């Protein structure tokens, strides 16, 4: 069991990303409004206001999608389709995706109710 975390910088992709999740067999996910550290420092902390010029072109806000994945085999397919959609997460500013092991969870959608 893994926790999949995806920070999606281009919010316009959110709908498509969730379709990819659903298609891959991810039953549920939590979507959080988030923002990058650089954006927060440059726009919210006066001392760092001079860094605004380096934020040009960067997206101010992003979405963070977290989901507990029971069947880790779905991640491979999901990753492939996310890369296709975004043009590859290796491209700077696209997003960050990672997993961490989960040793216990409660409250997940029962497997029989999964899409």
């Amino acid at each position, binding site marked *: 069991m893994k926790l999949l975390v995806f920070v999606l910088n281009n919010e316009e992709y959110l709908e498509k990303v969730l379709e990819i999740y659903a298609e891959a067999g991810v039953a549920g996910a939590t979507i959080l409004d988030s923002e990058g550290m650089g954006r927060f420092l440059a726009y919210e902390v*006066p*001392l*760092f206001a*001079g*860094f*605004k010029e*380096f934020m040009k072109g960067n997206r101010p806000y992003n979405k963070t999608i977290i989901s507990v994945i029971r069947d880790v085999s779905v991640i491979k397919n999901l990753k492939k389709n996310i890369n296709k959609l975004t043009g590859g997460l290796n491209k700077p500013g696209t997003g960050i995706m990672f997993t961490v092991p989960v040793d216990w969870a409660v409250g997940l959608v029962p497997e029989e109710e999964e899409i």
Partner: protein
Amino acid sequence: MLSINSLLSSDCILIQPNVKNKASLIKMLIERLEAAGKTNNTELLYKDVMDREELSSTGLNYGCAVPHAHSTALEQTSIAAALLNSGIDFNAQDGYPARLIFLIVGPKDQTGLHLKLLSKMARILNDQEFREILLNVNTEKDFIYQIKNRED
């Protein structure tokens, strides 16, 4: 490891200079950087620092200020500092005039270093005990020594 003391030399420190306002202090600090061979375009550097001042306050609370700028007027990130007898206004949130001033300037391609230095400066200047020590030094050498001591 990133250190403030390695970028600050004693000839770029002003201990209780006779200065009345922010603009003249920044000019004096930039002149020190020029004399130390860090920049040969003081006018541009002054303009870049003052443009940044226009953007928002570089005054920290507790009588400290960290004016700074990215500039094409120099090739290496450099620091100059001043310890003032009576503070000058840097428009800090707490309203206190600044007595400890650190000018950080660097080229546009060293933004990572610039960000680290600013953050480190803000962190160590938040330490009341350290501020008290710095406010009571009498020489440039002691000023650097105290910073090095705090960083080690």
